[in-house]
């Protein structure tokens, strides 16, 4: 077991190293897309600035609490584009072209390969801007964090990202059944606006809409609430349940889909 874990640990960092080598080879590309990513991040803060300029807050969330929330979203967004998008793009592409056969032959867990083998470093500044945003917002709110709070918030953030990643993975797995749907990987990021706002923003939307949207918003709401020191135990239960449930469902769907997979040639 320990030997197996060591192998996966080694592979995980080997993939990161390869991505680093890719970065060094295409330096201009890296700087260009980093610039674009920073531009979008600044744009997001500006958009929220416009809303807060006239509203002063969203529901019971004050201006700086909303900025803290947006910073949490920014961190998640950096992983969305740097890790999730590139991996899911390669995943669906390998299904459409039949290149998945190569991955199936490797003595490594397929889901691990599909979810970790690619990444880019273009969104590192976006991540750092998110961290700076959190620190600055906390300062404005006169709040301080201890190590335990930071660990808990990181855990909640990880859980939230896992939920998004698992949902995306399930969506990408649909590519085993559908053709002519090249934008299948745009579905999850296309709905990002939902978790760009706190849960409370949807509480007046009626039972059906809020029932649908509120569970999704926990991915950003709970980490933000942990940072603000007001997370309830029920939120944690929901987060843990959804992380576990989506992980299990993603794995189940992959096993079922791979069983019916067929390809000829090498794509």
């Amino acid at each position, binding site marked *: 077991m320990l030997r197996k874990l060591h192998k996966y640990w080694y592979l995980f960092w080997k993939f990161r190293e390869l991505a680093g080598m890719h970065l060094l080879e295409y330096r*201009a*590309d890296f700087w*260009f*897309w980093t610039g*674009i990513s920073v*531009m*979008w991040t600044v*744009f997001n803060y*500006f*958009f929220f600035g*416009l*809303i807060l*300029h*006239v*509203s002063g807050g*969203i*529901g019971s969330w004050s201006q700086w609490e909303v900025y803290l929330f947006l910073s949490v979203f920014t961190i998640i967004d950096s992983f969305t584009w740097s890790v999730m998008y590139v991996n899911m793009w390669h995943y669906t592409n390998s299904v459409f072209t039949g290149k998945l056969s190569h991955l199936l032959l490797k003595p490594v867990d397929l889901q691990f390969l599909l979810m970790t083998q690619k990444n880019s470093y273009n969104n590192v500044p976006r991540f750092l801007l998110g961290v700076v945003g959190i620190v600055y917002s906390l300062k404005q709110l006169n709040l301080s964090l201890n190590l335990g709070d930071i660990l808990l918030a990181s855990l909640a953030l990880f859980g939230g990202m896992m939920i998004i990643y698992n949902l995306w993975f399930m969506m990408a797995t649909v590519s085993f059944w*559908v053709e*002519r*749907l*090249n*934008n*299948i990987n*745009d*579905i999850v990021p*296309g*709905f990002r*606006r*939902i978790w*760009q*706002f706190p849960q*409370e*923003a*949807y*509480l*007046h*939307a*009626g039972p059906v*809409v809020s029932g649908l*949207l509120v569970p999704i918003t926990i991915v950003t709401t709970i980490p933000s609430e942990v940072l603000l020191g007001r997370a309830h135990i029920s939120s944690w239960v929901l987060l843990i349940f959804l992380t576990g449930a989506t992980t299990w469902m993603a794995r189940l769907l992959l096993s079922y889909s791979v069983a019916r997979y067929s390809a000829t040639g090498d794509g």
Partner: protein
Amino acid sequence: MGNRVLAIIRQHSLHDFTYRGEKILWIILNLAPVLVMFFVWQTIYQGQTLIAGYSFHDTIRFYYLVALISGTTQVHFEGWRTEQVRNGMIDFYLLRPLPFWLEIFFADLARALLSTFLLVPFLGFTGLLINNTWQVSVLPSNELQMMGFVGILLVAYLLNFMLGFWIVLASFWLEGAQGLEHFKWISLSLFGGSLVPFQMLPDWLAGLISWLPFKYMYLVPVEFYLGNYQWQAIDSLYITGILIFMASISIYFWQAAVRKYSSSGG
């Protein structure tokens, strides 16, 4: 000429129709953020009837119209056309008895017409939803206003096309021209007046927007539809001048681009 144009429109319409599932998905993905904004603003408006002189109903209409305008006037050819140029895959277009830029225009027009056709039921459903949920009517007040609105949408589409074509032109010189598409989206959102209603913008941005031609892409059509904007002769003169200017720049750089272009292999 007419037959060639019809052939391009037919060919691209058939291609796009083959990928209709993808098209419908794009429509849903474009509408989803707008629907989210309805609920967010509903929460923001709790306990107040006006924000910067704008009611909740006006805000709903604003975002609905932004979705309508985006869905009908935005162009999406920059990405794959720049790739064609960068990969040296436009040789055969240059040998055809129809200029490449006209090919781009009519191909995108075919896409825009199909997108609009597919968008109508979704917008109709959203309009009904809005009407049932918040008792907000999104219908125009009269036919004349509707016709004027369609005319402004055509202007918005032409402006969008020109900007998209400039990005394609840039790909003859710049390796990362594809990324300029992001710059275009941000600029249009910021200076077109599609982020929040005009009255809610800070003075410096509102002033800037009213000077720039991007306002004809969102701000003017929205305000015209809502009956808050009177189209005047100066608007026609200004926008004609802008379009002629943009077309002249495009022609100049297109000629330079064709002279610069080279490719080998297949």
